[in-house]
C-alpha cells in the first residue's frame, strides 16, 4: 500500500478562517433589508439602555417656560436646543422619544418573549400528547383566537388596571394561542418521526422528549413568530397608551405622546403628534424587516421569494 506523503499546508494555503466580520458582511449582502432593520433595532436598544446619558434633557420634569417650542428652537439664556421641539408641558420631545424607546422595548421584548415561549411549550405539548388533550386544547385556542387582539388586550387591562407591567400582561396573553397554533402544526409532523419513537422506547420522560427532542426542531417557526410579535407588541402598546389604557403619565411612551389628538395641535404645534408616530413607525419597520430576514433564513421554502 502506497503511503501518500502528507505535507502540512502552510497558513496561506489553508482556507481562510471566517471572522465574525466576514459573517456580518455576508449577511449584509444577502439580506440588505434585514440588516437595515437590525441596525434600527440596535440603535433603539442603545437609546433605551443609555437613555439617561443620550437624552439631552429630563423627559419628565415639566417646564412651562418652554411650552410648545418648534423644532430646532435655541434658548440663548440657558443654552438649550430643542431638536424636535417641546410639548405642551415644555418637555423636550427628543428626550421623551429616547426614553420612550425604553418603554417600547421593555413591553415589546417581555410580552413577545413570554407569550411566544408559553405558546411554544403549550403548542409542542399539545401536539406531543395528541388525542383528547390536543382536541380540547385546540378548541380552547379557537376560542381565544376568535377575539380580536385589541379587544382581548382591552378586557385584560380592565381587569388588571393600567401601568407598564399590566400592559405587558395584556399583550402577552393574546400572543400565546397565536404562537401555540403555529408551533403545534410543525410539531405534529415531528411526532410521527422515528427518532421520537426511539426516544420513547428508551424510556425518556415526556418532559425530556418535549424539551430536548421536539422543541429544538420547531425553533424556526418559533423564532419567526417571536420576531413578528415584537413589532406587534410595540404597536399594541402604543394603541393602548394612546387610548389612555396603557402606560400612564409621566412615563415617556410613544403612544401616550400622541394623546390629545390632531385638532388640538394642528395650528399651534403640528410637530407634537408627528415625531412619536415617526418613532413608532421606524421601530416597527425595523422589527418587521428583521423578522422577514429571519424567516427567509429559517424557512428555505420561502427563501428568495419574499
Amino acid at each position, binding site marked *: 500500500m502506497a503511503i501518500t506523503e502528507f505535507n502540512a499546508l502552510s497558513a496561506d494555503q489553508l482556507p481562510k478562517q471566517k471572522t465574525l466580520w466576514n459573517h456580518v458582511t455576508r449577511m449584509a449582502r444577502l439580506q440588505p433589508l434585514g440588516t437595515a432593520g437590525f441596525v434600527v433595532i440596535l440603535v433603539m436598544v442603545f437609546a433605551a439602555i443609555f437613555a439617561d446619558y443620550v437624552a439631552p434633557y429630563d423627559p419628565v420634569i415639566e417646564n412651562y417656560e418652554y411650552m410648545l417650542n418648534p423644532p430646532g428652537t435655541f434658548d440663548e439664556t440657558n443654552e438649550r436646543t430643542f431638536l424636535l421641539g417641546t410639548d405642551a408641558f415644555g418637555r423636550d420631545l427628543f428626550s421623551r422619544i429616547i426614553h420612550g424607546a425604553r418603554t417600547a422595548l421593555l413591553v415589546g421584548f417581555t410580552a413577545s418573549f413570554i407569550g411566544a415561549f408559553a405558546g411554544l411549550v403549550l403548542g409542542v405539548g399539545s401536539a406531543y400528547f395528541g388525542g383528547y388533550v390536543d382536541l380540547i386544547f385546540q378548541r380552547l385556542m379557537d376560542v381565544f383566537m376568535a377575539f380580536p387582539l385589541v379587544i382581548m388586550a382591552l378586557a385584560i387591562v380592565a*381587569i388588571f388596571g393600567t401601568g407598564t407591567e399590566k400592559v405587558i400582561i395584556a399583550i402577552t396573553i393574546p400572543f400565546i394561542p397565536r404562537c401555540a397554533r403555529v408551533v403545534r402544526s410543525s410539531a405534529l409532523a415531528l411526532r410521527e418521526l422515528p427518532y421520537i419513537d426511539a426516544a420513547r422506547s428508551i424510556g425518556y420522560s415526556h418532559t425530556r422528549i418535549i424539551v430536548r427532542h421536539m422543541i429544538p426542531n420547531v425553533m424556526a417557526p418559533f423564532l419567526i413568530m417571536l420576531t413578528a410579535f415584537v413589532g406587534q407588541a410595540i404597536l399594541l402598546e402604543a394603541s393602548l397608551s394612546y387610548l389612555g389604557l396603557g402606560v400612564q403619565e409621566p412615563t415617556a411612551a410613544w403612544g401616550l405622546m400622541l394623546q390629545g389628538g390632531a385638532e388640538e395641535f394642528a395650528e399651534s404645534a403640528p410637530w407634537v403628534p408627528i415625531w412619536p408616530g415617526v418613532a413608532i413607525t421606524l421601530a416597527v419597520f425595523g422589527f418587521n424587516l428583521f423578522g422577514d430576514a429571519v424567516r427567509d433564513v429559517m424557512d428555505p421554502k420561502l427563501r428568495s421569494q419574499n
Partner: protein
Amino acid sequence: MYTYIVKRMLMLFPTLLGAAIVVFLLLRLIPGDVCLLKFGGEGGYVDPEQIKMCQLRLGIADPKVSQFFSYIGGLITFDLGTSMWTNRPVTEEIAIRFPLSLQIAIMATLTSIIIAIPLGVISAAKQNSITDYLVRAFSIAGIAMPSFWLGILIILGLLIGTQAYSGVPWMPPLHYKSIFVDPAHNLSQLIWPALATGYRYSAVATRMTRSAMLDVLREDYVRTARAKGLIERVIVNKHALKNAMLPVVTIIGIEFAFLMGGLVVTEQVFNLNGLGKLFVESVTQADYTLTQALVMLVVFIFVMVNFIVDLMYAWLDPRIRYS
C-alpha cells in the same frame, strides 16, 4: 360536501359557547361593578342601601352560576337584555352603531383590495426590480405605521391643507348621517378612517398576493402557457391570478371580521361613534350585558367569516373537495 357544511356548522357551537364563558368570566374578574361606578363616580357619600338596591335590581348580587345560566339562556333565545348602564335594550344600543362600523369595514376592505391586488401582482410579475422594492417598502410601511397615527396625519393634513388653500380650515363632519340620507356628508366623514385602516390592511394583503403569485408563477402550467407563446399579461392576469387568489381571500375575509370589532383606536381618532367606542365604554362602565353582547357579536362575525372563507375555497378552487 353537505355533510361537511353541517359538521363544520356544528363545530361552531363549542367555539361560541367557549367564547361566551370566557367573556362571562373575564367580566366578573373586573374589579367594581356597574352600581358602584354609577353611584360612587362622583366621590361623594353614597348610601350603601342604594347600591344594594341597584345590585339587586340588576341581578349582579345573584349567585354567579344563576347569572351565567340566565345569560346563556338569553343568548339561545336571542334575548340580549337591557344595558346595565343606560337601561336601554342592548339590541338598540348596538343597532345605532352597527351601520357605521359595517360601512367603514366595507369601505376599508374595498380600499385594501383596490390597493393590494394590483400592487401585489405587479410586484410579483416584476420580482426584484425597482418597482418590486418600492411596492414592498410601501407595504411594510403600511404595517409599521399605526393606523391611528395615520389618522392623525390625515386630519392634520386636511386642516393645514385647507387652511393654506382656502383660508378656512376644514374638518370632516363629526356627526354621523346614514349614507342613504346624506351621501355627501356621510362619505366626507367616513372616507378618511376607511383610507387610514384600508391602507394598513392592504399591506398584509399585498404581501400575501405577492408571495401567492410568485408560487403560482413557478408552476408547470404557467410554463406551458409561456411555451404556448401567450403574452405575459394574459398569463399573469388570466391564468395565474385566479389560482393565487386563494390565500388572499382568506386574509381579506379575516381582516373584514377584525375590522368589525377591532377599530377601537381609529374610532377614537376620528371621533366616531361605532362599535369599538361602544365596547371601550361598556367595558370601563362594567356594563356586563352590553359587553357580553358586543363581544359575542364580534366573535360570531369572526367565526362566520372563517366558515364562509372555508366554503369559498371549494368554490374558487375546484381541486379542493370537502368530504
